[in-house]
């Protein structure tokens, strides 16, 4: 918190003219994904439990939207419904203005657990979606090679997933999801299982890929910095029931890099997210009841 000492942080809604122009341009683009009053209830012991209520959202072409929220806010349910892996109990979903439901390659998905097919090589994994589409295997192979090049794994095209590191596996998963040319790429905490260093690397990889591909991204995370670093807009959900609390336009200019982490816009957005996600606890005595268990004379600290 280097900025807390000197001048006060700007308001997170204040946008640099360049950033404001960018948002104006995004809003002019056609809406790719529209969610209209989406709701999801699960049967519970004491009547139905509402996981999501009245979620409405419009995502424009080539926009990068992050969804964050406390655990139990239903962000995973939301992305699973959009992917078609779960059905909403109310509301509808439109892709390019057409109502749709069920899984479909126009909405590609990257899962936290990689879910690569372990019996297929990297190349065959990336070819999978293309072949499902009925493409001949020669054509699928040449297209798959381009996507593998894009994620920088040319040398590993003939390797099996178990021979790759976590970050490389997730790059294959991204290439595989992008290969059938989806309109929307859904990412469900894709970097959650990676160590901090690989995660930072993957974030810049993803921004790079997104710059080179015409795709709209909906990205779920619980990491606030990750959301600010990646997103144009951040959708903040609240729990019980899962509802949209606020949609924040990130004022940090692009191109983004980790160096912006200390910039005032970044810090202001970060503080706002903190307020939303971790509201002030009312009771001050929230310390853990820690009893000193170390031996007298133990002077490590």
């Amino acid at each position, binding site marked *: 918190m280097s900025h807390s000492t000197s001048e006060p942080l700007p308001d997170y809604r204040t946008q640099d003219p360049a950033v404001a122009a960018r948002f104006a341009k995004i809003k002019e683009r056609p809406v790719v994904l529209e969610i209209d009053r989406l709701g999801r209830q699960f049967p519970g012991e004491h009547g139905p439990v509402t996981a999501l209520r009245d979620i409405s959202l419009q995502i424009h072409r080539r926009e990068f939207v992050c969804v964050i929220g406390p655990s139990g806010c239903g962000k995973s349910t939301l992305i699973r419904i959009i992917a078609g892996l779960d059905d909403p109990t109310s509301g509808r979903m439109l892709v390019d203005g057409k109502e749709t439901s069920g899984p479909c390659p126009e909405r590609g998905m990257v899962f936290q657990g990689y879910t690569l097919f372990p019996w297929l090589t990297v190349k065959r994994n990336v070819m999978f979606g293309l072949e*499902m589409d009925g493409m001949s295997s020669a054509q699928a192979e040449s297209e798959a090679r381009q996507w593998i090049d894009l994620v920088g794994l040319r040398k590993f095209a003939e390797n099996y997933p178990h021979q790759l590191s976590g970050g490389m596996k997730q790059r294959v998963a991204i290439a595989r999801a992008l290969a059938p040319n989806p309109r929307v790429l859904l990412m469900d905490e894709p970097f959650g299982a990676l160590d901090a260093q690989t995660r930072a690397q993957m974030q810049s990889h993803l921004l790079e890929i997104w710059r080179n591909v015409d795709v709209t991204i909906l990205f779920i995370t619980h990491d606030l910095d990750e959301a600010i670093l990646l997103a144009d807009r951040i959708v903040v959900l609240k729990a019980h029931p899962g509802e949209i609390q606020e949609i924040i336009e990130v004022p940090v200019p692009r191109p983004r890099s980790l160096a912006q982490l200390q910039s005032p816009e970044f810090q202001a957005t970060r503080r706002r997210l903190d307020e939303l996600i971790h509201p002030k606890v009312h009771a001050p005595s929230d310390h853990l009841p820690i009893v000193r268990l170390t031996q007298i004379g133990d002077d490590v600290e």
Partner: protein
Amino acid sequence: MSRPRWFAVRQDLSPSRRRLLGVCAFLLPLLLWSIVSYVPFIWHPNIKVTDAGDVSWMRPGLQFDRHEFAKEVAAAQSAGTRPPAGIRANPIYLPAPHDVGRALYTAFTTKPVLKGDLWLHESLAMSLKTIFWGFLISSAVGVPLGILCGAFVAASRLSEPFVDFVRYMPAPAFGALMVAVFGIHLEPKVAIIVIGTFFQQVLVVANTVRKVDGGLIEAAQTLGAKRSQLVLRVLLPASLPDLYNDLRILLGWAWTYLIVAEVVGVSSGITFFINQQAKYRNFDNVYAAILIIGFIGLATDQILAFFGQRFFAWKNPRSSRLRAFITRLFSRRDQPLPEGQP
């Protein structure tokens, strides 16, 4: 550095130690058998007559209980007649290793005792034929049905309760019925093996297919895979290594049912051979035949395991240490992204 312990909880052993213990696993029982066979004071409860003396009903070569024999000797001595003589011996049903070894060696060259009896290799061929057809027919129906049950809940609910019910009926109980239906030759025996393996097979295969990670199905769905593609391109390849292992284990069960199947109708195959040899009290041949079954089973299993490792290298990354090392070397540093358009 201290030498690693032989007994450390869930720690792997060096390859040389693994090999050594594997050899010992066979040598120790053999050693035990040898001790019991060759060291007279361990067991040897009988006396084998070498000289009948004046006891009219004894014949050289016959065996008698040690204490009974001692009584006869005492009786003969007190009566003043020539006492019988003999050496200590194990019961006839426990031949010494070298006897069984010789029987193994001569098993395929010994002529059958009766005309019409089969040679050992003919008996074995018959058994293998029974197993082959039984297991093939069972698998041809059981594996596809099991896959369907694993893939579709409706198929599972429609068939598994009944399969589960029949599974508890012992296959030998169908023996008389199968003879009535199929006659007395090969067919009822094959049927017993099918009944013994099929129902287990359906349940085992269905369970294996159900164990496939649901995430793979979801991933395939988001990539546009339809129902038949999910079964043929995801469930099947994902469960294939485990299915292969299931079949290996079930083949072992088929051998168990073989012995039952072969006494149904006209006794045949290796079981018939064993029963005949036991009747003639050629127990060394009995042991030899049982050992041959063991060897065939072990060899088949090892061969199948070897091919399994080759077929499903993606499942067993331990295959080549060199390749693993090279992979680790490369994966330590992630490749940078190239610039430019896709």
